[in-house]
């Protein structure tokens, strides 16, 4: 994106392309833009006919969202489950990726493909047993359960992304360290870590986004106690009360941080979601 841009020559095609691109983009972005605007309206303004475009913005919705439902609890649940599952996932995935990238064996390829295949399993296929297990162990509606599930469902993506990062590191560097008598721990700590920090960070970022937005498991396995923001927003679906301004405020708070993180993790998204098939 930041490649050197030669000065644009103004031509009819450039004008046409610019207008077309901006028009389509604004149409696609419109629902989200409307949501942002609605978050700053009063409930009455939110459902006014015709729609209000000019109005005096208010912040009351953001306060009332907390009063109506314990917003901060759900936000904390989302934050804890996504951050802990990401860190836990990295801790499990990094050693595996390291092992496969630097100590390739004939089985490596098969292990990688098998991990990929576990990600292909539809979540709904595991719903019944996971629900029954959670119920019998008393883990239903706990953060621990969500953390475990998020970790496991993101693990294949993590291993794959880290593996492709590690693979690009020249083996000679590690061998040189070993020659100099470094132990495995020193080798990882002092030589490998600085080289893979970027890979760990970008992998973590993507999995954070995926865990934060996860809806299937959080809707089915959590409610009042461990419910995430995805589950909280779903509670606004009742048609009785039209709390659009509050819905918008709650939604905006729930998506804003992650959309921003998402912008920065575009490249990782392409790599992680396609398992390296598109570069």
């Amino acid at each position: 994106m930041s490649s050197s841009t030669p000065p644009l020559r103004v031509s009819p095609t450039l004008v046409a392309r610019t207008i077309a691109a901006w028009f389509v983009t604004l149409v696609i972005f419109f629902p989200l833009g409307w949501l942002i605007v609605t978050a700053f309206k009063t409930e009455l303004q939110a459902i006014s006919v015709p729609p209000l475009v000019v109005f005096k913005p208010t912040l009351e919705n953001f306060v009332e969202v907390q009063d109506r439902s314990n917003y901060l609890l759900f936000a904390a649940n989302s934050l804890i489950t996504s951050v802990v599952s990401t860190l836990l996932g990295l801790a499990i995935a990094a050693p595996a990726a390291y092992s496969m990238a630097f100590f390739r064996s004939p089985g490596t390829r098969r292990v990688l493909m098998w991990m990929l295949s576990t990600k292909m399993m539809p979540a709904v296929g595991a719903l019944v047993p996971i629900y029954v297990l959670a119920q019998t162990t008393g883990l239903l509606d706990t953060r621990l359960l969500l953390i475990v599930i998020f970790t496991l469902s993101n693990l294949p993506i993590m291993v794959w992304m880290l593996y492709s990062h590690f693979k690009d590191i020249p083996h000679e560097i590690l061998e040189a360290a070993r020659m100099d008598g470094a132990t495995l721990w020193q080798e990882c700590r002092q030589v490998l870590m600085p080289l893979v920090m970027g890979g760990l960070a970008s992998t973590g970022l993507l999995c954070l986004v995926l865990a934060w937005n996860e809806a299937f498991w959080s809707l089915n396995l959590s409610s009042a106690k461990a419910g995430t923001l995805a589950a909280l927003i779903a509670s606004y679906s009742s048609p009785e009360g039209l709390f659009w301004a509050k819905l918008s405020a709650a939604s905006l708070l729930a998506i804003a941080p992650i959309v921003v993180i998402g912008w920065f993790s575009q490249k990782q998204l392409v790599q992680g979601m396609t398992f390296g098939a598109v570069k």
Partner: protein
Amino acid sequence: MKRFVPRMLLVPAVGTLFLWMIVPLAMTIYFSLISYNLMEPGDHDFVGLDNFTFFLTDPSFYTAVINTLVLLGSVVVLTVLFGVAMALLIDQPFPGRGIVRVLLISPFFVMPTVNALMWKHMMMNPIYGVLAQLWKLFGATPVDWMTDHPLFSVIVMVSWQWLPFATLIFMTALQSMNREQLEASRMDGATYLQQVRYLYLPHLGRSIAVVIMIEAIFLMSVFAEIFTTTGGGPGDASTNVAFLIFKEALLNFDVGVASAGALFAVVLANIAAIFLIRLVGKNLDR
């Protein structure tokens, strides 16, 4: 001994993933063969294939399969067509390209429940929704989207979410286009349409295949959008296989029948998965 430590480092990841795969699968197979309702404690009799017969002959099942395929097919076609068009449109520099990219990609990072309710309430509400106002502006009768076109509404929501994904993949793929070849073809008098036909599309072929397969896997079990908006209805009008399994399991508490359905969903997903795994595997060898 030299191989021992690296092997051990693999154990946590392989072990947990193995459990994650095998335990639910084994339990699902077992449940699918017994009579098991969460509301009726007692003996779980072996019932053979009764659960499968029940699930597969349920009139809702046929509708659900059709809905799943219509939903999947429509979203794939819409996102690939518009995704390619968008990627081509913004492939070359124009004023504000950076901002356009950011705005375009945003919907993919919106959580599904927000996406669903935003469309259900603020866009598609038959009285106050933006679309209703727009319809009135042009003198048309506003449409009650959720009631009259439930499946179409879900298709719109899911497409809106996945169009950025497709666009992003195609944009990335276009970056590796051979610019000299493009320039040469232009010198030789090729029109833009010819370039699209003979240079851009062949180059995108592989990523189009990837997008189709990944969407196939994820969209086979669209759930949150249906759960938060139409609830599968009216009737079964917007129930897909994933939602039907959910209904059997957590609304009817029939674990046996839901498990039979889940096995069906796994088989369905695996058909798509085989192709993707082949493609990725080829890439791994390079």
